């Protein structure tokens, strides 16, 4: 299985130097989505959501597989 690296850019740049193996890019996308949502949950608990933060997924050669802004990880329904 290929290895993917997930860099988180929020209040800090959390570069992933370990990564982990997933079946394919689609699985990496799902993982990024779940993680973005979990990180947004942490923000919600503190009372502020910043959707400009993002998760970047790289493959083993350092190519960007996905750049996921938090704004693309959730739907906002504003009534």
């Amino acid at each position, binding site marked *: 299985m290929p290895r993917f690296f997930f860099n*988180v850019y*929020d209040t*800090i*740049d959390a570069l*992933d130097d370990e990564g982990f193996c997933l079946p394919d890019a689609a699985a990496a996308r799902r993982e990024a989505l779940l993680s973005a949502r*979990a*990180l947004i949950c942490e923000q919600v608990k503190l009372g502020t959501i910043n959707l400009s933060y993002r998760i970047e997924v790289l493959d083993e050669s350092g190519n960007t597989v996905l750049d996921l802004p938090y704004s693309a990880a959730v739907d906002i329904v504003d009534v």
Partner: protein
Amino acid sequence: MPDLHPTFDGMVRRLERRSPLGEDDRRALKHVQHSLRRVPAGGHIIRDGDRPEYCSLLLSGFAYRYKITGEGARQIISIHMAGEFLDLQNGFLQLADHSVQTLTEAEIALIPSQVIEELALTRPAIGRTLWIDTLIDASIFREWVVNVGRRDSRARVAHILCEFSLRLEAAGLAKGHTYELPMTQEQLADAVGLTSVHVNRVLKQLGEQGLISRDKRRLVIEDWARLRDVGDFNERYLHHDATAMAA
């Protein structure tokens, strides 16, 4: 009689710290009937639902207990290091209610369940010390329930790093709050109920705040007092100082 693995001495010393043993008890434990098995990293020692015939003592390497939810999510429920029993409850329970897998290559001693039961029932001092051992396991489980249930992500990770430090040191595997983390980020994530990405984010944050530093798997706790504070960590539940009163 098979050659005595040095970890048997460690196991006996560890149990003896909990509760006094006589010379006969010590000998009975050190020479307990067993077979040796070498398990590769990621190998299963027992699976949920198995009917166990043995209790396993970890002689070298690391292992963990886990359960899987209906949706396939893994929760690691404890980590074990050399000298510890991995499934002492299987000496008395008929059915394994969780799985045990190695984190690294490991050597284990398989002790027939009936031998453990016989030791515990015929030698009260051994029975007492094994009982205390499972009680302390339970104490650690309780702390982990609190950790994954009630602490925020930063506290969860800080807490588990503090626990590893003290347990590895007690097992003679670490010194001065510096150790080789025996787990990947993914495994750490399953132990604290977060995603791997989230764990990396927290580790980086703890690093930026000067609480820890890391070089690959090598972890140094740079500020023990603050990490302890962030992790809401109190080592009481490990019962390392507990020398039980003589029966």
